[in-house]
């Protein structure tokens, strides 16, 4: 129960951060990718701000064996550049630019995105379910338990 509660607090803080940072606004996200137009650097500040606490967190992970609730920390994935990583990242980038939503803001948009957000989320969810059948069976993703 404590695990679910902490998870809920984490999700809430993430949602608040998305809102405050303006990453719920698709024009800011598309503006960051629009280097040949009216470039908007906000996303770089969001990413920089988010990496700071995480860089500290990874230092703490180095000195401990398990997380506070007992789970072992996730190991660093081997630096293997398989086909799925490359193709998937490119496909994600294209979809990200088309609408200006990535999975976090897309989910959060349920509460503010109207029908447009919902249509995007349905397309995204359908593709997530279908993706299991389209991926390289040797990839790390399909092997993960």
């Amino acid at each position, binding site marked *: 129960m404590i695990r679910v509660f902490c998870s809920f607090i984490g999700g809430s803080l993430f949602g608040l951060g998305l809102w405050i940072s303006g990453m719920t606004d698709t024009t800011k996200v598309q503006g960051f990718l629009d280097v040949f137009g009216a470039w908007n650097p906000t996303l770089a500040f969001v990413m920089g701000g988010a990496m700071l606490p995480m860089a500290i*967190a990874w230092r703490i992970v180095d000195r401990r064996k398990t997380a506070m609730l007992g789970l072992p920390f996730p190991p660093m994935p081997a630096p293997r*550049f398989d086909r799925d990583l490359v193709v*998937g990242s490119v496909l*994600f980038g294209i979809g*990200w630019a088309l609408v200006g939503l990535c999975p976090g803001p897309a989910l959060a948009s349920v509460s503010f995105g109207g029908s447009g957000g919902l249509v995007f989320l349905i397309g995204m969810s359908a593709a997530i379910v279908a993706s299991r059948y*389209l991926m390289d069976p040797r990839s790390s993703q399909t092997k993960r338990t």
Partner: protein
Amino acid sequence: MEWLMGLSGGLMIGAAAAMFLLINGRIMGISGVFGGLLDGTGRENTAERGGFVIGLIALPALMVQWWPSHTHITGNWPILVLGGALVGLGTRMANGCTSGHGVCGMSRLSPRSILAMALSVGAGVACMAVMRHLLGVI
């Protein structure tokens, strides 16, 4: 001011990721947390994933009450469906999105995550150039 709001919100997102890692022992990757709920790969910790997703939706739902929504999601349905499908498929294939690879992976200097984000941003910039400036579709 936009940059300051971005930085402040970013710090909160990073704090959420740090909390999820240090307390729950998990990577805060939304495509993974949500994807595992949808395709059954996260069956053994459904409640933990669900709690995160509910918080992620509930907080903006609360914020919108006194801070009006300022999003500009397109009304072009074919673009929405195509964009959603590419994001869903791409992030599952790459095993991460802006939160998992970007916030969590890059801060760990994981080579896979750095490559993934470089490719996604590169593809996004190219897509913007073609679809907005060449074809005028978005």
